[in-house]
């Protein structure tokens, strides 16, 4: 049995193609039932997200070529495209490579934004659809569960998802580096822009308890405030609001500075030197750069945020390198466990066959032994079985070793000796 993965992702196919391939849950289950025939394609699973569509399947090893062809055709048919149309966009991985690919996808190493958390949930969902469709069997069950374990390990042992990589989330990130917890923090939005709104949402999710909104046109502020359960503040009372705010997000369309150094200094005095984090995402800038020089005030403009994001991405890339090592070692572990799974049945078969021979011989010779007590009879049988087990033990060990060291020929020849493949 071989594991095959065929698919497209954001690197190999444009959105026009990916959207034609996207599967709904029902289409996914239907497709899987059609695809998995129990002879060539034994098991199957479809991962369909906005950035990728991939079919993972277990295919009878001897039918590898035709099986893989069927997967590709299946994708062509799904997208209602002529056969062979997708060939330039498809990638195809077999066995070890397929396992590695799945591990990388689930650990978010293959994502557009490395470390994004959604993809694991999507793989989980794909698996549950396959289970319901009845197309996840012995091999895929094992593979997918191992995949979850790998993804969890990568998440726990590396900082791949640790730092924000979007402007709107930076407010949370920077806030957390200044305040030990955002719980109980007050956020002030100056200007009711979309970006400010998104940042504020992130801050509220992270625990910020109060949002103040001020805007030149009060109506806009009021609308936004209604969505948040926030409080609006008249624009001319900005100074008063500054005193309360721990995090200030400024994004007005004003052509000049809305917040000056003097205002920041005065509010700092009233705040009894409690630190404030000013984030200015407007262009032209709305907060006077000199505000950043005030002690206990931290000012970040749009370029600063971009530079943190760049450095966060670098940090994630460093972590991704470590994640690749984890994936590598897990792929090896999985391959080994798969080989042991293969050897299990043949070892069992060997032992059974030998014991059968012994019992048959006993039956044949039984008459010559005359009358025996029950104990004697049991002892003779036990003697035969233990002799068989002791003799076959080194042979079985050797078979196991052949499988572990990937010597399929040697493993096959030991099967051949005992005529195990009927």
């Amino acid at each position, binding site marked *: 049995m071989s594991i095959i993965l065929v698919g497209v992702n954001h690197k190999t196919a444009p959105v026009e193609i990916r959207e034609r391939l996207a599967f709904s849950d029902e289409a996914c289950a239907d497709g899987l039932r059609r695809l998995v025939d129990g002879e060539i394609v034994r098991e199957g699973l479809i991962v369909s997200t906005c950035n990728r569509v991939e079919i993972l399947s277990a295919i009878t090893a001897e039918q590898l070529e035709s099986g893989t062809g069927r997967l590709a055709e299946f994708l062509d048919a799904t997208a209602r495209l002529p056969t062979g149309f997708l060939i330039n966009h498809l990638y195809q991985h077999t066995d070890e490579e397929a396992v590695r690919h799945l591990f990388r996808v689930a650990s978010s190493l293959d994502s557009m934004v490395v470390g994004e958390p959604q993809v694991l949930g999507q793989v989980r969902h794909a698996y549950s659809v396959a289970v319901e469709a009845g197309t996840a069997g012995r091999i895929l069950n094992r593979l997918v569960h191992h995949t979850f374990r790998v993804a969890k390990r990568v998440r726990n042992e590396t900082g791949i998802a640790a730092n924000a990589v979007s402007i709107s989330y930076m407010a949370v990130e920077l806030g957390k*580096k*200044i305040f030990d917890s955002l719980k109980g923090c007050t956020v002030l939005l100056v200007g009711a822009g979309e970006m400010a709104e998104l940042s504020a949402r992130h801050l509220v999710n992270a625990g910020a308890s109060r949002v103040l909104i001020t805007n030149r046109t009060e109506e806009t502020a009021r609308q936004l405030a209604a969505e948040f359960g926030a409080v609006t503040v008249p624009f001319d009372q900005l100074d008063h609001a500054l005193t309360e705010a721990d995090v200030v997000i400024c994004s007005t369309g004003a052509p000049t500075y809305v917040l000056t150094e003097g205002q920041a200094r005065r509010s700092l005095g009233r705040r009894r030197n*409690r630190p404030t984090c000013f984030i200015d995402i407007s262009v032209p800038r709305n907060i006077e750069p000199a505000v950043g020089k005030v*002690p206990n005030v*931290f000012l970040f403009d749009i370029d600063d945020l971009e*530079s*943190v994001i760049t*450095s966060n991405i670098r940090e994630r890339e460093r972590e991704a390198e*470590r994640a690749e090592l984890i994936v590598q070692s897990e792929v090896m572990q999985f391959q080994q466990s798969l080989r042991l799974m293969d050897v299990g049945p043949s070892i069992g078969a060997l032992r059974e066959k030998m014991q059968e021979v012994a019992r048959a011989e006993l039956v044949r010779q039984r008459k010559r032994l005359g009358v025996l007590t029950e104990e004697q009879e049991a002892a003779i049988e036990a003697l035969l079985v233990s002799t068989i087990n002791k003799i076959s033990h080194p042979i079985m060990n050797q078979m196991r070793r052949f499988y572990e060291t990937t010597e399929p020929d040697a493993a096959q020849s030991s099967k051949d000796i005992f005529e195990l493949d009927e």
Partner: protein
Amino acid sequence: MRSLLATVLAAYLIAAIHSILAFINKRRSVQRVAEWATVTGFVLHTGALVVDWMIDGHYPLFFLRETLSFLAWALVAVYALVLYRYRAQAVGAFTMPLISVLVFFALLANPGPSDAPAAFSATRLFPIHTTLVIFAYAAFFIVFMASVMYLLQERELKLKTFSAIFYRLPPLTTINELATSAAVVGLTLLTLGIATGMIWSWNRYGRFWHNDPKEIFAALTWLVYLVLIIYRSTADWRGRRAAWLGVLGFALVLCTLFGTRLLGGYHKFGLFLGI
């Protein structure tokens, strides 16, 4: 005895190495090893001090070897508290190596005569005085560590350089709170320590004050931390200035602890490094 202390050193070294590794690569599993090694080392260290006490018959805080070992022990205790209360793992990467060095020198140091002068072991007040002061110094070390971390992190945020340090140090207010509470604890202990020392001196010599360098430095240290705390609580003096004061205070602590060995004076008794 020595072998027990050597085992303690081994545990602390493991903790130090893993703390540094955890600081660099931020792996939780490595951090866990560091914490377990710290706890193991601390338990063994406590045992070593108790055994010392029973064998030598005096409180194990008198000779140089004992002082170094006891100081290390106090630092571990304080560090463990900080870890438990603030989860400020970064502290370990700086503290555990220092602790290891202290224990290492304790192992090297001349064991000295096993009996302390009777005058010092006769009264309970003297060991109380030394213990209080040692713990005060350990707390001041935490203030110092927190102040340095504050200055580094604040610099990162102000200059927006965001180097590796930025990702590894705790948030500013956590560090600030840690520094403030450590300073309060330290000052309380130092006040009590100085008071017990004075009473002991009064009982023995009939005077509170000997004008020796150690006493003067201790008084200065006391004053600096008092100013630090008063400013923090009344004028809400936070941030860089408070952090610099924390660094200055610790420089005075070092002078008090080691400087008097060079300057001489009443607190120096031959082999014995006074507190």
